[in-house]
């Protein structure tokens, strides 16, 4: 067909083209793991020094680390894996990024073109496998298509609603030759993401906001992804309205601000959930009315309210809840436009109505739903560890989390004042992300404090990365809230399965201190409340050390408030109105 396996003047190999493309995209780190199908690529990688390759210990961790790099910096994360098992190992990472709209380019090797479909060694239909969990994917069939495809991949990943893009490249293509020409810009007739919102809709929204008696601002991951915190703070301060953030939106509005009501949803605060339910005008900003956020939609819709919704993705709008004023656009430009209109506006919010609304909210706040019994001097409360972590790091660390109770406590008790500091898996809820997430953050910000809050269940899902952390000298601090249970599972079993703790314990745990030490890290066991703060100070004082802190925490502590499945968001179980903890007590024996 063509003679692209003969190098001509001006031509370079497919593998070299890939390197040049990554360089062009200013990629700083590629997280990956080699194998047969990507040997040409790794050979080209060996000869370049524009980006650093981070050799992980499992491909899942490569994708998670690239994902965290993106969450922390806003840049596109890049991972590189081999065909077959390398590719399938990456799938959990890709799906995790997809659910939280994180821009990634994942390059996977594929068997040679002639072997595709032959059940060749290490062949898997990566495009087919990942189709439901990527924003888009490509199989490259011609060396001359590599550059344009990679260009498209980065463009698609980062624009509109961000997401992961997989580029599957057969081995023979990486050895063939072509001229290298990287397009500066790209246009696709089938993909034209909206940026600016509709001005008429924006004006209408501002008018409705100004007429509100009981307004509420609800923001999510889209605000963080769209880097629109400053615009939001300006809008909220101008109006004086209450603000809540989803789990994905934490840090989008400063947690220590008096207008902030805390997180909402299943484990949200009493005030945030009640204000959400009771408001007459709700503005949703880059948030998608998730089932863990609004609880039972019938209950949520049983009271009338006007809903304004800003989102880049039209399919997020009116998906679970019918919206009155849809605004499709980038959060940053839409909020900026709202601020401009408000600046020129003579009408002001209804001060009297707002005053009584805040009085009502303060009443809810009085419940102090985010509190715990910290009176024990012998048992460490997990919430206390997070409070101290926040103090010791001055609320300014990058905090990654795994999935479970510890995740919720980290979200509730660490006060995030800045966006992109809270790095966790919300949509897929993937146990095992914590450590690779911390790697991505620490590589992005070598001098920053990076804490990985985890559980003894979750940390063991990517524990092999302790080795990667040693190799790359990553001074991460692991905050293990070790309750010897798959705590979140145990909590549901306690509440909804009459304490039948089916397979939710964690037995045969390793000696985490020795484990950490075997990798050249520092390990600590912390068993008493009095030692918590000091240990944290010691750990963070070791600026160039990876410290694994094993906190033996209360086995039976539960996450409150909690909205049980199927209930409305204002139908919460509070820590103060349950004797659930006592029931767990008895089980312990």
């Amino acid at each position, binding site marked *: 067909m063509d003679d692209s396996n003969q190098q001509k003047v001006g031509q370079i190999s497919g593998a070299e083209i890939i390197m040049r493309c990554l360089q062009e995209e200013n990629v700083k780190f590629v997280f990956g793991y080699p194998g047969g199908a990507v040997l040409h690529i790794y050979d080209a990688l060996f000869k370049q020094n524009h980006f650093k390759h981070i050799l992980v210990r499992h491909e899942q961790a490569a994708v998670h680390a690239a994902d965290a790099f993106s969450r922390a910096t806003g840049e596109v994360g890049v991972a590189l894996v081999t065909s077959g098992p390398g590719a399938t190992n990456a799938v959990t990472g890709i799906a995790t990024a997809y659910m939280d709209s994180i821009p990634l380019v994942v390059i996977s090797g594929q068997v040679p073109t002639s072997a595709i479909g032959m059940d060749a060694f290490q062949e898997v239909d990566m*495009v*087919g496998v990942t*189709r*439901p969990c990527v*924003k*888009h994917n490509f*199989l490259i069939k011609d060396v001359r298509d590599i550059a344009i495809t990679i260009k498209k991949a980065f463009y*698609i990943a980062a624009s509109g609603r961000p997401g992961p893009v997989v580029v599957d490249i057969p081995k023979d293509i990486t050895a063939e030759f072509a001229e290298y020409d990287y397009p500066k810009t790209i246009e*696709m*007739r*089938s*993909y034209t993401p909206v940026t600016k919102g509709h001005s008429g809709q924006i004006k209408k929204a501002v008018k409705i906001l100004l007429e509100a008696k009981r307004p509420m601002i609800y923001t999510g991951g889209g605000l963080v992804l769209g880097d629109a915190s400053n615009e939001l703070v300006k809008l909220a301060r101008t109006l004086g309205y209450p603000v809540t953030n989803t789990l994905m939106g934490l840090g989008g509005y400063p947690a220590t601000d008096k207008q902030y009501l805390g997180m909402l949803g299943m484990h949200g605060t009493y005030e945030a959930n009640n204000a959400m339910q009771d408001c007459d005008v709700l503005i949703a900003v880059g948030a998608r009315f998730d089932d863990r956020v609004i609880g039972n*939609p*019938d209950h949520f*819709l049983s009271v*009338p309210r*006007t809903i304004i919704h800003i989102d880049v*993705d*039209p*399919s997020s709008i*009116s*998906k679970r*809840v*019918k919206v*009155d004023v849809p605004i499709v656009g980038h959060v940053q430009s839409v909020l900026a436009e709202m601020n401009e209109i408000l600046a020129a506006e003579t009408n002001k919010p209804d001060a009297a109505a707002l005053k009584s609304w805040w009085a009502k909210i303060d009443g809810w706040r009085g419940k102090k739903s985010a509190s715990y019994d910290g009176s024990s001097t012998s048992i460490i409360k997990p919430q206390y560890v997070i409070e101290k972590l926040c103090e010791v790091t001055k609320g300014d660390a990058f905090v990654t989390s795994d999935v479970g109770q510890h995740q919720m406590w980290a979200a509730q008790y660490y006060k995030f004042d800045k966006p992109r500091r809270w790095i966790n898996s919300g949509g897929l809820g993937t146990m095992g992300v914590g450590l690779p997430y911390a790697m991505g953050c620490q590589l992005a910000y070598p001098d920053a404090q990076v804490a990985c809050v985890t559980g003894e269940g979750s940390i063991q899902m990517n524990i092999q990365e302790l080795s990667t952390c040693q190799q790359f000298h990553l001074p991460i601090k692991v905050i293990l809230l070790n309750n010897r249970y798959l705590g979140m599972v145990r909590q549901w079993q306690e509440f909804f399965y009459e304490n039948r703790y089916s397979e939710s314990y964690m037995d045969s745990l390793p000696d985490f201190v020795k484990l950490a030490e075997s990798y050249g890290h520092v390990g600590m066991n912390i068993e008493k409340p009095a030692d918590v703060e000091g240990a944290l100070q010691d750990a963070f004082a070791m600026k160039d050390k990876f410290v694994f802190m094993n906190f033996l925490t209360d086995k039976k502590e539960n996450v409150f408030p909690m909205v049980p499945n199927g209930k409305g968001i204002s139908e919460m179980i509070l820590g103060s109105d349950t004797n659930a903890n006592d029931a767990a007590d008895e089980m312990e024996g």
Partner: protein
Amino acid sequence: MQMTLPMRWKAKMKHIISLLMENEAGALSRVAGLFSARAYNIESLTVAPTEDATLSRMTIVTSGSDEVIEQIIKQLNKLIDVVKVLDLNDGRYIERELMLVKVKAAGALREEMKRISDIFRGRIIDVADGSYTIELTGSGSKLDAFLEALDKTVILETVRTGASGIGRGDRILKV
């Protein structure tokens, strides 16, 4: 501002959706995969390249409440390979489907089958000793009506293409 009913309470309506997409390997599976992944109904789906070989035109017959149809359209638009989507039910349109039916046609049935075929403006396109193959085009409901008019025992085989749709008059779906 009015109270909204939960989506599942609402009536399901049949819709015909037309779309143009890049004529690329895998594009069809993205659409099919979307429908199965999101549990949307799919009654029929037809696809073929257009006069511009870089584009394929697809007609999908589906059903759902207004909210579900709105989501289907949005999700289709979100697919990177999809260039344009049109819900034909938003205006006037023509729907046509082709069906081939092989029926028993021995003895007395031979006349009877010819007569029914004529009534529905069918064409007999193959004649064998004991059977006819009838070609019929029309809307899906016309084809259904034809099958209903036949005694089940005379039908030997049917094959339908699924509906193709096009807007009436000035309604044009083009890049």
